């Protein structure tokens, strides 16, 4: 689900950070979780009167861990706010807490504490068991702590901007779960730094979980337009990406939070919001319409965490196999802090492990999920981000159950299942959010991990081509990765093949032109860009690259026109901003040139080359 087009395109790694939306259920107002010792003590204290009571023992647990969702207006099916509410469901509460179905929290404790843990302690579970089995004593409710303060409106206060699905989606009364991606334009006049987004579905009962994503190129709008209903189907939200790599997930009980200081992300005009919702039919026709609040800040980011994925695209699980294992590893070239992580698999996922093996051989469990449940996926953040030295190996180990014993198996009887984005396919991804401890380390990690990501794309493209040698997208991906990893000469025969296979593919012509340009074949490159534009006049990168050709030949006026055209199509394309700025500087238009470089800098705040250029331009302007 957490695809990042910039990674898959193999260009540069985007700034990454998770807007940590985890919040502890039941901890309204930031109350600390009840420590196990405290509960034990309270249970014992009550024991003198013949077992735990609601007032003294069970009520506080329920208020803290259940009431945030089990209250009016929230997603949970019934209220757990009073003695009668809880007593009338005591057997059920005892069972679901003992099996740890509730409160929903998949990980077992690992080597490092996770933030906002929604896990009951063994002592708390025992207290509930004892209470349910021993007469559900009420106790003296005068001693009951008050319900945690719970907001009914926006959890983060009045947003700076609210966008809303333009109409409701009608969910049928029954049938399979629905994964629907709703595209909402964001009316924005100027770029803004976003410190938080908050989702508010009007009908929380049907929304099992959601991700907030963005689309920059209008692709999601086109997908949305394909049928009459709002949104488009798909578990992986084709065409959408996490905003600047920030993960924003929503589940019942998870509260919105602001990004930590220095970690806002840039939202540019023209961007669409994509709300991916996992909807579960309830037995009656339902409608759902969501709104999203944006919270802006004037503080540009100063911290730039990155996103790393360990994943397998080679998943191929024979029918009936109940313990298929994938394992991938990556050795860190520099010291990082691990801020958080997101595991992702579909319905065959069984267990998940994220390990860190330090250079001295010590193994740590970053995350361990003993029983994966797609319905409760989300992101996890560490209470204190562990510091991992250079040379630490990150390990992803997932297992899958493709037997009929896995009741969630989408196939009856089981069938061979391979990697893919559909709900009947399988995936295995583990995303780490890391913060390198130095700018040099950051550059090192970008280069090293970038090569790995490109290699993955090359491998995956070859597999796709074995399936279908005429898969033009796969040929182009292979050509792009060859260009980046081996240089233009290696990529040219591949990209020529792409044009040969599909002569009317604008992308094939563009990337062939791009490789030719990198190879110095300017005339042939120009011809390919013209062919690209003949197929798709608004192919933005073709305008940009034509501008590059003019810039190299010092045809400044023509270069300026081409870059301006590129920016008409994509107003916040950083490279076009930078190159147009450069053209203007060369034409002595220092003020506008500097403005453009500053805009580019806003979009790409960690680009050293751009920063150097901007400093030089400012010095030149001062000397003027």
């Amino acid at each position, binding site marked *: 689900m957490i695809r990042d087009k910039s990674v898959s395109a193999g260009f540069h790694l985007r700034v990454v950070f998770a807007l940590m939306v985890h919040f502890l259920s039941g901890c309204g107002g930031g109350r600390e979780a009840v420590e196990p010792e405290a509960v034990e003590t309270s249970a014992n204290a009550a024991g003198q009167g013949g077992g735990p009571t609601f007032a003294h023992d069970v009520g506080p647990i329920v208020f803290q861990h259940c009431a945030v969702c089990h209250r009016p207006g929230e997603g949970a*099916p*019934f209220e757990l706010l009073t003695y*009668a509410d809880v*007593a*009338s*469901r*005591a*057997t*059920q509460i005892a*069972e*679901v807490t003992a*099996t740890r*179905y*509730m409160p929903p929290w998949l990980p077992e404790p690992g080597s490092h504490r996770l933030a906002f843990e929604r896990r009951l302690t063994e002592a708390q579970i025992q207290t509930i068991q004892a209470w349910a089995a021993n007469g559900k004593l009420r106790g003296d409710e005068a001693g009951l702590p008050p319900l945690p303060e719970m907001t009914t409106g926006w959890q983060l206060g009045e947003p700076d901007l609210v966008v809303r699905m333009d109409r409701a989606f009608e969910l*049928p*009364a*029954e*049938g*399979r779960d629905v994964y629907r991606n709703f595209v909402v334009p964001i009316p924005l006049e100027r770029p803004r730094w976003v410190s938080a987004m908050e989702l508010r579905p009007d009908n929380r009962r049907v929304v099992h979980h959601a991700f907030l994503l963005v689309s920059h190129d209008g692709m999601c709008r086109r997908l949305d337009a394909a049928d009459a209903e709002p949104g488009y189907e798909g578990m992986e939200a084709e065409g959408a990406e996490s905003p600047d790599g920030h993960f924003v997930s929503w589940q019942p009980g998870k509260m919105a939070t602001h990004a930590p200081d220095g970690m806002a992300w840039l939202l540019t005009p023209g961007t669409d919001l994509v709300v991916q919702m996992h909807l579960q*039919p*309830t*037995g*009656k*026709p339902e409608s759902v319409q969501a709104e999203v609040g944006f919270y802006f800040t004037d503080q540009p980011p100063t911290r730039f965490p990155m996103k790393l994925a360990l994943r397998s695209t080679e998943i191929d699980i024979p029918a009936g196999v109940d313990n298929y294992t994938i394992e991938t590893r990556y050795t860190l070239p520099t010291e990082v802090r691990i801020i958080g992580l997101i595991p992702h698999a579909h*319905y065959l996922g069984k267990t998940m492990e994220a390990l860190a093996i330090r250079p001295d051989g010590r193994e740590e469990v970053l995350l361990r999920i003993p029983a994966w*449940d797609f*319905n409760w996926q989300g992101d996890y953040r560490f209470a204190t981000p562990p510091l991992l030295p250079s040379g630490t190996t990150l390990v992803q180990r997932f297992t899958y159950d493709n037997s009929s014993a896995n*009741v*969630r*198996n*989408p196939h*009856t009887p089981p069938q061979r299942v391979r990697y893919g984005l559909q709900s009947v396919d399988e995936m295995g991804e583990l995303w780490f959010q890391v913060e390198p401890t130095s700018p040099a380390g950051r550059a090192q990690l970008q280069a090293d991990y970038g090569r790995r990501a490109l290699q993955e794309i090359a491998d995956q493209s070859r597999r796709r081509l074995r399936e279908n040698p005429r898969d033009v997208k796969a040929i182009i991906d292979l050509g792009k990765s060859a260009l980046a990893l081996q240089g233009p000469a290696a990529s040219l025969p591949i990209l020529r093949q792409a044009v040969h296979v599909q002569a009317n593919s604008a992308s094939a012509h563009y990337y062939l032109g791009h490789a030719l340009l990198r190879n110095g074949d300017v005339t042939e490159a120009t011809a390919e860009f013209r062919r690209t534009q003949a197929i798709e006049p608004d192919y933005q990168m073709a305008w940009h690259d034509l501008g590059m050709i003019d810039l190299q030949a010092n045809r400044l006026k023509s270069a300026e026109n081409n870059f301006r055209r590129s920016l008409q199509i994509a107003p916040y394309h950083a490279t076009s901003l930078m190159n147009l700025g450069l053209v203007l500087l060369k034409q002595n238009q220092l003020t506008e040139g500097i403005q453009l470089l500053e805009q580019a800098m806003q979009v790409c705040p960690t680009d050293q080359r751009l920063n150097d250029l901007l400093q030089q331009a400012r010095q030149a302007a001062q000397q003027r």
Partner: protein
Amino acid sequence: MVDHRGRRMRGNRVVVRSGCGRTLPAVALAMCSILLPLCGCRRDSTPSTPSVSLQAAVPPGDASPASVSTDTAWLEQQVVDLDGTTHRLFRATDRAALLVFFLQDCPIANAYAPRIERIHQSYGPRGIRCLLVQVDARATIDQLRKHAVAYGLTMPVMHDRQHELVKLAGATVSPQAVVIDATGRVRYSGRIDDQYVELGKKRPAATRHDLTDALESVLAGREVQPPTTRAVGCYLESDAH
């Protein structure tokens, strides 16, 4: 997908009014107090109740199904719908009765509502008397009436506030189906189908349709195999009323 809007319209016909509410006419009240000791009437104040079986059915501290599925208990059982109208559980033409025990805020039960309605639509005309038994003592008649409309349930809805039927059937879960044939014998008790395996764990779709299989067996005069299955859903607390 089935279009449920049509059903929702039909659902308006559902009779939903207080079974033993405060505003009942005296006759209904009397019937009610005889047949179902609701309305604050104590059971021992109704010695003339026809349900010796009821007495037997609910021995103090014992509500196990084995002790309740006597023939006379079910044959003489009467039920009161949300309108306050009392019915015999069995009418002359009924070949069997299906009771579906139901907590109106149980998400699993609600997810089954369209399936329950389909069973009512297809088996009602074949002689199966389908009744929805709402068991939440705290629910109001108005809530239950609205629930039936919202979920498109057109079968008669009973409010088993005192868990008389729950005890007689030995029902423990919502939703749980109990099929009683015209001789008063419980022929099936358990799940509707196997979609839910445990709380929080369900198949994408059911692979066994135990209830309709049971109804087919009863209609064909065969024994139901298996006669009991484990229903998965929300537990009915024995003292919830």
